[in-house]
């Protein structure tokens, strides 16, 4: 296993008979992923493009040895879908669904953690390792196998940046879209050790956003533990303040959470920080060059 997914990954798609589920099950298979099952309650015995559909995740795992779940179930039912996957023994769940209330996600996160299941997302593009497997919705066209890892809180901005890395003639080891919701299953700090330990990753691109302190926490981890070159970008430098959250929200992050504090923390940790997305590929090339010298 490289970072979380590899050729042994066997995916069950929850909500496979819905439009997004069907489209992306197809795309995952095109990428070379073993999509072994789908789950839609009440649709057992049918199939989606040859992928067998089951009524429950337990049935799917029993019959197909699925070991990763990709969840497209609509927000009101997503919590139940995730808890079901955890109870069926799935230890990697990518939650693509957007608009899940964070109160639901709090329950999902702590329950999954207590059972040893990792959640990626929600509201995320998922994970992909070119030449190995993809669990999620990142467009296949942006990838090329290589040695640059990517972790991001954004969706489409990640595609843009991964695509830029490919156009530079470089490729990716693993790309994880963590999702930008207030509560995420896997944060930068959770993902960084995976890339540090991954022998197939030589450099890491980290794409952050304003709000919260995930980037500052990541910077602290990088400073102390991360030995590979890091190129970072923070979106939202020009965003006006105050369009979110009230008083109590502001005081948790006192003096943190702005683009300036994030950039400063990352630079202090030795990361190369791009001012604009289009600077990233060049900085990655430079970082790789100096790392090899």
């Amino acid at each position, binding site marked *: 296993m490289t970072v979380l997914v590899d050729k042994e990954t066997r995916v069950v798609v929850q909500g496979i008979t819905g439009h997004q589920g069907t489209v992306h099950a197809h795309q995952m298979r095109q990428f070379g992923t073993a999509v072994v099952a789908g789950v839609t309650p009440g649709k057992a015995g049918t199939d989606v493009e040859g992928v067998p559909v089951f009524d429950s995740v337990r049935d799917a795992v029993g019959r197909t040895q699925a070991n990763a779940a990709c969840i497209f179930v609509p927000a009101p039912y997503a919590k139940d879908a995730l808890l079901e996957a955890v109870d069926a023994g799935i230890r990697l769940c990518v939650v693509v669904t957007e608009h899940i209330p964070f109160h639901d996600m709090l329950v999902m996160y702590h329950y999954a953690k207590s059972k040893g299941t990792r959640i990626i997302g929600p509201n995320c593009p998922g994970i992909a390792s070119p030449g190995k497997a993809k669990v999620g919705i990142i467009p296949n066209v942006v990838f090329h196998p290589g040695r640059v890892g990517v972790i991001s809180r954004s969706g489409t901005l990640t595609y843009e940046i991964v695509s830029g890395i490919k156009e530079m003639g470089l490729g990716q080891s693993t790309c994880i879209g963590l999702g930008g919701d207030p509560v995420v299953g896997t944060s930068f700090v959770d993902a960084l050790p995976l890339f540090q330990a991954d022998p197939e990753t030589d450099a890491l691109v980290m794409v952050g956003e304003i709000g919260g302190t995930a980037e500052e926490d990541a910077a602290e981890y990088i400073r102390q533990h991360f030995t590979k070159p890091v190129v970072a970008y923070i979106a939202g430098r020009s965003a006006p303040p105050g*369009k979110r959250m009230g008083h109590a929200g502001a005081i948790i992050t006192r003096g943190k959470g702005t683009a300036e504090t994030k950039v400063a923390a990352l630079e202090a940790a030795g990361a190369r920080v791009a001012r604009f997305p289009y600077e990233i590929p060049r900085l990655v090339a430079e970082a790789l060059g100096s790392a090899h010298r």
Partner: protein
Amino acid sequence: MVKLAEWQGKSVFRKYGVPLPRGEVARSAEEAETLVRSGAVPLPCVVKAQVLAGGRGKGGAVRFASTAEEARAAAAAILALEFKGEKVREVLLEEKLAIVRELYVSMTLDRTQRMPLLISSARGGVEIESVADAEIDRQTVDPFPGLTSYEKRRVAKVLGLSGPLVRSLDRLLDSLWNVFQHEDAELVEINPLAVVGDGLVALDAKVIIEDDASFRHPEYAEVRDDRTELEEIAREKEIAFVQLDGNIGVIANGAGLTMATLDVLKELGGAPGVFLDLGGTDDPKKVTEAFLLMARAKPASVFLNIFGGVTRCDTVAKGLVEAMRQVPSDERFPLIARIRGNNEKEGTEILRAAGVTSVPDLRASAQAAVDAARSKP
């Protein structure tokens, strides 16, 4: 997010048993006077503007009255206010209590710990941002056991309470926790929480409800908020739409890409005026609606920056072409497009047929949008 006005927050509090001053809402000076005369609001009373912005006390939006005539005059004066850009539509009249001390408690989310966060301070009645860190206590509350007795005892100690006040706090914190959880709140804040006699009373209420939970809270759908009219329409159509001060409209997909686009425009000397995030859609109708909404904001130029994933470039192009047909001639604007990713070729071709060139380079296309906005009279 849905920000509740004080009186709306207090009606939620009442449901959960939070102790409140006796009070009523009035929408006219006459109504205010009647409420006092009928005894529904005891004298002396306080008359407070129901607006979302803070700092009402200093801004003349809170007044006191000891007669029905004074209550009427206070209500009339406050209802004539426009407080920090917000028109005052309601006043809350409440009995004036003999306050011994003012405290602070709130419940919100700690994103890093992924847990609810209970914040308390003995320094209530002032903006919490102005209170020194050392005087603010924060403890996370694990959602699984929920709020425990020992956590509540810690708050009592922080607030310096003893005797019957500890029991009053115990019940109040349970209510706060229940509001936070059951109402899907992002923030529940009581500031000030007043010591009155041997009990606690919530003098103010700040409640913010999470939008994503609207499927189980239809009761908040009608709540007036501080959104602009266009932002309200966008909300109904599930399009993320924020109005800023500049004149360039930005349509992108995904919050990160949208913000990055604003950053680039600003760096190149442009001033973004509207931020519209299409999100993930493969419905051309939604794209058309988004464009028509953008047209109503009257931008000097519009920069369309799409990276196709779930959203396909040809879907966006089709929706855009349809919108251009529908936009009235006096609302037309120069359009600079950059569409990349899934079905890029098809999308680019559809746009070309409609006379719009997609420029793949981000910097070059952003520069074109800035130049177009500048040259528009």
